[in-house]
């Protein structure tokens, strides 16, 4: 059974600071998705990465996928209060599987 570990579990920073959160897998990712979930809402897809070493940018967010496809990071530059939420990484649990395996998430609070 694949295990996804996310760190840190909680992160509280001041507006304008930079931060990085991590997602590590016990096995190679099929494809990795990052989601953000705001309180009282469902997760919203931010990005999908598939290729080892891949880097994707989404405005102030930079996503990196490890060469071995077992780890990923999300870096946020100049965090804003609107970035507050639970950041989840998820992987398809194998070819032909319909299941997404989620990590427990990193709960980010950006203080104005």
């Amino acid at each position: 059974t694949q295990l996804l570990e996310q760190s840190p579990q909680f992160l509280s920073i001041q507006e304008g600071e930079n931060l990085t959160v991590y997602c590590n897998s016990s096995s190679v990712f099929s494809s990795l998705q990052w989601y953000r979930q705001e309180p009282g809402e469902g997760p919203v897809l931010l990005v999908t990465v598939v290729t080892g070493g891949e880097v994707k940018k989404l405005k102030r967010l930079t996503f990196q996928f490890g060469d071995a496809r077992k780890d990923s990071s999300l870096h946020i530059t100049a965090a804003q209060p609107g970035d507050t939420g639970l950041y989840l990484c998820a992987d398809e649990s194998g070819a032909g599987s319909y299941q997404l395996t989620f990590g427990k998430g990193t709960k980010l609070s950006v203080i104005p």
Partner: protein
Amino acid sequence: GAGVSQSPRYKVAKRGQDVALRCDPISGHVSLFWYQQALGQGPEFLTYFQNEAQLDKSGLPSDRFFAERPEGSVSTLKIQRTQQEDSAVYLCASSQRAQGLTGELFFGEGSRLTVL
């Protein structure tokens, strides 16, 4: 509608009661998923429908959980004889893709179930 709609948003049940949670996916989306999210945890897969066919129910925690999607659109998740450990947010998601997950899942806001 524009997004995935779930109802009720909040449900309080006494232990032993039956509950039904409804999901209205994005129109035309073939795939529909149910996930359970306990407090402080990530979502966990419950079941998957492709149109009206339930192709995977391996995540349902017990035979008290039952899901259906009879006409390939609206889905209902039913929990019989609720227990305190059933307390969680139940998330529904839909996708226009028929096979696999190499595409975007659109989640609803969830139904928060509290069992007293």
